[in-house]
C-alpha cells in the first residue's frame, strides 16, 4: 500500500484545543475543536474532493465562501462547504466519490 500523501495544511499553534474525532473516507481521523471542516480534512489529507470534470483533486481555494471549490459530501449524501462549516464529532466525510443520488 502506498503511504498516504502528507497533509496539506501545517498547524502553527493553538494546539491546546480538545480533539474532535471524525471519519475521512472510512478511516478514523482527528481534528481540533474550532477547526473548520476544511482545516480538519487538510491537516489529515492532501485534497478535499475530485473535480467533477476529471481534471484532478481540489483542496479549496479562497477559504472565505466565495470560490465554492470546497464543497464535500458526507456518507449520508449531504453537501457541506468545508471552509465555512465547523467540524463536529462523528462527521463522516467522503473525498473520493459522490454518494448521489441517495435512495435513502
Amino acid at each position: 500500500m502506498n503511504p498516504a500523501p502528507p497533509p496539506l495544511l501545517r498547524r502553527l499553534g493553538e494546539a491546546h484545543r480538545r480533539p474532535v474525532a471524525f471519519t475521512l473516507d472510512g478511516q478514523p481521523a482527528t481534528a481540533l475543536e474550532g477547526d473548520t471542516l476544511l482545516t480538519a480534512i487538510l491537516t489529515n489529507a492532501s485534497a478535499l474532493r475530485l473535480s467533477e470534470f476529471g481534471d484532478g483533486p481540489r483542496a479549496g481555494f479562497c477559504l472565505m465562501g466565495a470560490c465554492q471549490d470546497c464543497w464535500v459530501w458526507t456518507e449520508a449524501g449531504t453537501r457541506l462547504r468545508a471552509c465555512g462549516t465547523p467540524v463536529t464529532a462523528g462527521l463522516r466525510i467522503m473525498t473520493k466519490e459522490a454518494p448521489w443520488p441517495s435512495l435513502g
Partner: protein
Amino acid sequence: MAQPRVTIVGAGPAGTRAAELLVAAGLHPLLVDEAADNGGQIYRRQPAGFRRPPAALYGTEAGRATALHASFDALRGRIEHWPESLAWNLRDGVLHVLRGERSHALPFDALILATGATDRLIPLPGWTLPGVFTLGGAQIALKAQACAIGRRVAFLGSGPLLYLVAAQYAKAGAEVAAVLDTAPAGARWRALPLMAARPALLAKGAALLARLRRAGVPVHRGVTPLRLCPDASGARLGGIAFRQADGREAVLDCDASGLGWHLRAETQLAGLAGCGFDFDRASRQWLPRIDADGRSEVPGLYMAGDGVRLLGADGAEIAGRLAALAVLRDLGFAPPAGADPAALRRRRQAMDRFRRGLAIAFPWPAQLVAGLPDETLVCRCEAITAGELRRSAGALDAPEVNRAKAFSRVGMGRCQGRMCGLAGAEILAAARGVPVEEVGRLRGQAPVKPLPVAALREEEA
C-alpha cells in the same frame, strides 16, 4: 415617526460603522452577514477557544481591529444581527435572505450593501492544484485557524496584501520560499506622488519589506509567472515556474502558494438590484455607480466599502459612516451629534488618491492574462480552458462576456465568475482585439451563492 426598515448586508468595517451610526440616530437596523461572527474578512475573529492575542492576529492593525470589535459588541441587542445568513437575491425593494433552512423576503426602506471584496485572480496553468490558495485564503488559514497553507509557502501576485501576508507568515514561523511580484520594480516610484497622500501607509509598507528582508525572504519583482507545477505525485503543488525580470527562467520549489492581484469588488447584489455600473480604469473592473456618499441610482439602495470602491478597511469605515448619514438624511432623520460628512468625504478623497497610486504601483498584468496558454483552465468551477473561451470569441463570434459565457460556460459555475470573470474578460477582449471595457460586464444571476434546494419558503405573512 415610524421606525423605517433599514438593512445592512455585511458585518465588516463598513457595515459595522454604518450600523453604529444608525443606532446612534435612534434606528434599529437589521445586519445580515454570512459569517458566524462580525469583522468581515479583514478583521475576522478567530473561533472560540483560540488564544492568540490581537497583536498576533492583526499586527499593526490590532488597534483598529479591537476597536471595531468593541464597537460591534456594544451594538449587540441594539441591532438585529442575522449571522450565518445569505442574502441571495435583491430586486424591487426586497432582499431575499436564507437564514437557517428558511428564505425570508425582507422589504426595506433603505439597504446598505457592504459586501466587501475577494482576491483578484489570474488563472495560471496549474492553479487548481491542491496547495494553491488565494492570498486572502492563505491569510484566513493563519488568522482564523492557526495553520500555514503548506510547509514551504510562496506568495505570487501583486499588491499590498502580497507583502502583508508574506510578512505575517514569516512572523508566525512559517517558511516563506519567496515573494514573486509581477509589478516591475520601477512602478512603485511612478506611483509615489499619488501614494504620498497616505504617508503612514507608505511607511507601513516599507516596514513590511524590511521585515521580509530580515527574515531572509527573497523578493523578486517584475516576474512573469509561467505555471504552477505539480510535484512528483502529480496531485499537488511542487513549484512555481517563472521568468525573472532579466529574462531568465527559474523554478521556485514550494508546496503551497497564495495568489492574488489586489482585490475585486463583490458587486453581485448591486447588479441584481439593477444598479448602473461604470468601468473603473484604475482597478480595471466594473464598479457600481454611486454618489460621494454611497447612494446608488436605485432608490433606497446605498453602498459602502470594498464592494463598491477598493479603499481598504479604514476607507470602508469612512464609507460606511457616509452611507449611513445619507440614509438618515434621505429618510428625514437628524444625524447624530458630531457627524461631519464633509470631513469624512475629504479623508476619503485622500484615500482615493492613494488607491489610484496603488493601481500604478501594483498593476494588473493584463498582457499576461491575455496571453495565457490555450490549455489553461480559466473557469475552475466548470473546468473550461482559455482555448475554449477563445473559440467562443473567434469561431462562435461572441462579442461580449455574457455571450461568451453562454457559449463556453466560463463564468457559469458555482462561483458566478468571481474567480475567473475579470481574467476571462481580458482573454476575450484580447481575442477580439478590443479594449477590455468593450466586452462588457459579466451579469450576476441569482442566487448570489449556491442556494439549497432544501430551502423552505417563509410562511406567507
